[in-house]
């Protein structure tokens, strides 16, 4: 009898140790990633100067020239375009669903937004090629009096905007729902209209949270690969307008995995690109999560 109790207690304390170990290891994966990518990126960092890598537009791996500027600019253009398109829609939808919509619409819309988040990025890419690319080249570009093949920054931005919409909306709804109802009631009791309450109370109180939501969407857009790669054109020049092709960093990495081992320093350059992506996304995420954790603490 005592023997058995001992075994049960031993199992329990073994489980405690194992689960603790796994939790610690999982927490350290991010650092492992940084370290692994840094080790592989070091060869190119050792022979090229910082400005040569990040401020040169000359990308000729065969000649040993690795200027990342076109790709960095491509990433910024696409991400910027997606934010401009997505943020108004996401915020309006989030306000509607959390403040105005009747219950049945809310219950119906949430799973649909989740579904939008669950669609694989390659499917977004296929859809972009089928619908957005022709739409941009046949309607939007002529409307603005220019020509575009459709495989351009704007197409990438539109597809990305749809992909980051669920992220921004979801986080914003959570932020709004963490604002206590009493504050709204107080505003309404002072004679404010519903919209004034939303504008002056909910949006004001929720501002840090909204910022966090947008930053999370931004970092998702920053690293998105397949869907953008399929519609953005992939030409390694600094784009001058949204109707020109671009070549974002993630697309660069994904497109050249095949050749990178046969050209000296090529693999190192691509790992450096991945390291840069990871660093930027980490900074964005850490800032956003800090804000959200703080908000959660406050509301508890």
């Amino acid at each position, binding site marked *: 009898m005592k023997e058995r109790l001992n075994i049960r207690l031993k199992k329990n304390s073994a489980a405690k140790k194992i689960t603790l170990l796994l939790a610690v290891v999982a927490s350290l994966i991010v650092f492992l990633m940084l370290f*692994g990518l840094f080790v592989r990126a070091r060869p190119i960092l050792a022979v090229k100067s910082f400005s040569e890598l990040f401020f040169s537009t000359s990308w000729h791996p065969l000649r040993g020239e690795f200027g990342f500027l076109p790709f960095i600019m491509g990433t910024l253009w696409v991400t910027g375009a997606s934010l401009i398109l997505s943020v108004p829609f996401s915020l309006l939808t989030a306000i509607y669903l959390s403040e*105005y919509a009747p219950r049945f619409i809310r219950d119906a819309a949430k799973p649909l937004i989740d579904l939008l988040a669950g669609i694989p990025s390659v*499917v977004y890419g296929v859809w972009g090629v089928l619908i957005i690319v022709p739409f941009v080249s046949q309607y939007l570009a002529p409307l603005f009096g220019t020509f575009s093949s459709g495989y351009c920054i704007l197409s990438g931005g539109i597809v990305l905007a749809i992909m980051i919409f669920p992220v921004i909306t979801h986080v914003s709804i959570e932020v709004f729902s963490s604002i206590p109802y009493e504050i709204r009631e107080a505003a309404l009791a002072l004679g404010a209209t519903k919209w004034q309450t939303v504008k002056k109370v909910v949006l004001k109180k929720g501002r840090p949270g909204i910022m966090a939501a947008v930053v999370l969407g931004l970092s998702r857009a920053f690293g998105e690969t397949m869907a953008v790669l399929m519609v953005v054109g992939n030409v390694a020049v600094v784009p001058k307008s949204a109707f020109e092709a671009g070549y974002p960093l993630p697309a660069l990495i994904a497109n050249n995995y095949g050749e990178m081992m046969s050209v000296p320093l090529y693999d190192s350059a691509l790992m450096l690109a991945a390291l840069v992506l990871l660093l930027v996304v980490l900074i964005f995420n850490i800032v956003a999560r800090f804000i959200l954790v703080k908000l959660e603490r406050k509301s508890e």
Partner: protein
Amino acid sequence: MNKKKIEENIFKILMAFSTLTVIIILALIIGTIIWKGLPSLSLSMVTQVPKGGYYLGKEGGILNAIIGSLYLASGATLLAMLISLPIVIFLNMYTRKNSRIATFTRFSLDILWGVPSIVYGAFGFTLMIFIGLKASLLAGIMIVALLELPIMSRAMDEVIRMVPEELKEASYSLGATKLETALKVVVRQCLPGILTAILIAFGRGIGDAASVIFTAGFTDRIPTSLLQPAATLPLMIFFQLGTPFPEVQNRAYAASTILVILILIISLLSRILIKRYSRHKL
């Protein structure tokens, strides 16, 4: 009407409009893919592997990619589950709710969630060089499991967190250890929620392309061992769409239809499970 009212009404219309737009876009995406893909979907596509000249428009199917994706996503989901469940049990049973280590682990998992899948792929590549592994099913499973880990463990954590303290205490008072309480009471109570988390992670795993480019490789054959490369549906779609032949592009649409239907089934199943779960709720 005064100005305040007009402003409110304009915004109300805008809000309803944007919500509606998004739902229409969702319908448009699913509708377009199925409408373009369904005509090209045939029995030979899902029962054959690519034959010679397949990418030029000749005979064959995408069975290699379907099986490859199922192997890959199942293996990765299983592996992710074996890591996630203990982590979640640790977070909710062996440490206080707001202990420093629990906060840090949750924070790290949230950060990991935000890491783009192409970075997972690149990291997988460095890892494979380090341990001397070639592009293979095994390497793909490892990296996709890593990708699924934060999604699955945070989703599980959300449900297990909701288990009332009294339920655990009732179990302790009967003399159960924490481990026994975790496995026989908490996990059982949350089973539908846990299954939902697993399903969501599986859906993410089967749809991801950027992380498997480097790690799982691509092949026209169905892998027979963990050390062989494996084709995956998303990459199959990508490669087929990249060819200049309309017949082959049509097959890319058909393959997308298969992927979308899979995702719809997963999403529906998890909805049903969530409903079930709320019925069990204490």
